[in-house]
């Protein structure tokens, strides 16, 4: 078994053995495969990239071709224990509605996204006067799939407004590494966050 990407390694710790998961934008299905093999977890992944979908099938995980922007109405209330979405929140049409959907289907949800409040991003805009680009955000403003960038603070305010409870938050750099120093000022120093949330 190959080592899990660092953010997935954090996520898997929050998934209970023997539970049911739904992974939105599941990529090649590495997380589902790991959870299936190591934690006896059952579930489905949703993916729209053809190559990634085929890779999921090769990985022996259940994958369904479905666009997150078309909603999740085909999944029943409380049909999953945990709904997971890694690095896709900022790319969907209505992140707020999708969050509601995730917590309708799952008792808990795990969300990761890039922090637009990262200090380099802030300085890029401040000094260059242009929409920030970086290794994490390599796109031009006009062709980026990331149409709803937010900061950690934005996300937490949205959760508060929606009555969503944050169970846990882990902040990392762009290599998905945790450093004690990020904790000094996470909203400024963290590039990616993993949030574990639930309905209040």
């Amino acid at each position: 078994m190959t080592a899990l990407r660092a953010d997935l390694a954090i996520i898997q710790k929050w998934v209970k053995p023997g539970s049911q998961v739904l992974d939105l934008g599941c990529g090649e299905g590495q997380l589902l495969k790991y959870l299936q093999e190591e934690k006896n977890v059952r579930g489905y992944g949703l993916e729209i990239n053809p190559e990634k979908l085929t890779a999921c099938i090769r990985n022996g995980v259940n994958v369904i071709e479905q666009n997150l922007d078309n909603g999740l109405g085909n999944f029943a209330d409380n049909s999953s224990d945990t709904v997971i979405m890694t690095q896709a929140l900022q790319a969907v049409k209505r992140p707020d509605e999708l969050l509601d959907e995730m917590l309708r289907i799952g008792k808990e949800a795990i969300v990761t996204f890039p922090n637009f409040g990262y200090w380099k991003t802030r300085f890029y805009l401040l000094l260059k006067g242009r929409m920030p680009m970086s290794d994490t955000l390599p796109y031009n403003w006009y062709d980026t799939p990331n149409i709803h960038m937010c900061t950690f603070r934005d996300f937490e305010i949205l959760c508060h407004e929606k009555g969503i409870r944050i169970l846990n938050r882990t902040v990392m750099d762009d290599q998905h590494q945790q450093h004690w120093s990020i904790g000094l000022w996470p909203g400024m120093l963290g590039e990616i966050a993993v949030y574990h949330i639930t309905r209040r």
Partner: protein
Amino acid sequence: MPDVIPENSVGLVTPKTHHFDEPLTLRSGRVLKEYDLVYETYGELNADRSNAILICHALSGDHHAAGYHSMDEKKPGWWDTCIGPGKVIDTNVFYVVSLNNLGGCSGSTGPTSINPETGKVYGPEFPICAVRDWVNSQARLADVLGIDVWAAVVGGSLGGMQVLRWSIQFPERLKHAVVIASAPKLSAQNIAFNEVARQAIAKDPDFHDGWYHEHNTLPKAGLMQARMLGHLTYLSDDAMKQKFGRELRAEEFNFSFAPEFQVESYLHYQGEKFSTRFDANTYMLMTKALDYFDPAAAYGDDLVACLSNAQCRFLVVSFTTDWRFAPERSEEIVNALVHADKDVSYACIESTSGHDAFLLPIPRYLDVFKAYMDGVADRCGLSGGQS
């Protein structure tokens, strides 16, 4: 006609026939006292009989799914694209069984067979079969071949309906179900198309209420019309535009009602070819089986409850421009399987070829299908023959 048999072909194949003496009670209540099933097999059955794949054919298909019957045969079997050594359904790994369904016209007992009770051809008196009758007869063939559990049952269109039926009728007898370009039941529009096709046949003066053999004739015009209608519903607008556009056979209009556009002569050719090879009563019967199929009806129209009986894993595949068996219909199956907490994967393949796509070598389709079949081999503990 192949000068040389391609290396990835199953090669020359010979159909086999099994005669069944045990009566088969059909959904209609009628009983077939005895019958034949004609079938082909590709690959070798392994010692523990765990590598068998059943292929279920669609409306106009038959047992000849792969390879060649002779060096004179122009085209290989209807699903040669997917069945053969190293192909999607790898005959180096799997033992593949493909049969002609009851009521067919390619060797299994059907309307063109002799009714042992009357000594004459069954004709229109051959009982209309339902999908479940085919599945029951396929299960008996499995018994004869010593196959307790299929590694997978695979089919497209009407074949996919047989696969669904297998999963709920004999849940313990298959490990995987591959349902391609299919639906949990026909829509009113689909039934309507079938009825127009049947009427075209029935209204042909040569049909004689199905007794055309006794009149030494064939309802060729009716069958041709039925096929032309069917065929154009299997294509997409895009596919027809690409293939024919508004191209004319001649330079200019000749202001007659003879076929002038290429698309017209294509349809004529397809209809003509079909009307000489296929039996009209079989066509009527097969379209009825399509219309009747609705496994959820016995569960208060609850497809989730219906599929809850299934024990196998599923792959469901649809094609973007298939409007006869649209992606939404496949998604009904997928959603019901998800609600029933079954293992299922689903791919909607981009294609311009309409319903016909399921028979074509579309790279992404073959990739997905191959990935799944390799997984079938893994989960069934089959080794060798794969990369």
